[in-house]
């Protein structure tokens, strides 16, 4: 199945792109998507302890299931205001 990965702020800079399309095998969770991303780009790994994740623009857990067509976002610690 095909999912869209969204990356923001320094994660986006590290990956060189804010939007990636990836094929993952079903069944998959946010964690599956993150693992394959880190395999591809080990420099992202440092964010594993501090980031938040979202599925289809809603906060989610690493254990959340993802489906074909979903948008999975990885978010560094926030600094708005």
């Amino acid at each position: 199945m095909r999912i869209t990965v969204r990356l923001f702020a320094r994660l986006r800079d590290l990956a060189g792109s804010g939007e990636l399309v990836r094929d993952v095998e079903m069944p998959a969770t946010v964690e599956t998507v993150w693992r394959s991303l880190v395999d591809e780009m080990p420099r992202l790994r440092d964010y594993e302890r501090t980031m938040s994740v979202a599925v289809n623009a809603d906060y989610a857990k690493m254990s959340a299931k993802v489906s074909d067509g979903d948008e999975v976002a990885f978010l560094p610690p926030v600094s708005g205001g």
Partner: protein
Amino acid sequence: MAAVAVTSAPLDLQALIDEVGGASTADGAVASFIGLVREENQGRRVSFLEYEAYEPLAVRALQLITEEARASWDDTRIGVHHRIGRLELGEASIIIVAASPHRAHAFAACRYTIERVKQIVPIWKHEHFEGGDVWLEGATADPDDEAAREAARRIACA
């Protein structure tokens, strides 16, 4: 503009007061907060900031915050606009308005909102300073973190 928004346009406090307060004569108080781009940060001379947002989730998180505030101060209405894109020194990055029959609720809801924005809204500052640039990183966003929510409430009611 809606009471809650993420926008690249300059922020207009009076427009937000009008949006939130409207023509209500039940209100006795409007409290407002304006966050500004400061010239110094952690010893660095700031040149300008670039704000980035995950917009749909940022709007949802802002809406969640205003619902939380209403649950605590149920006679209070809140508006919040966050600006994104490049902001120069002295420009407003966020404006918050809380209207209520009573000033204590207006002040508390306003303070609660800015504290929660810093905890859970997916917006990031890219600071450009004399000699370089850096992404600022604050809180790991978790809307279900009760301790963070309670900390924001304590500050709001201090």
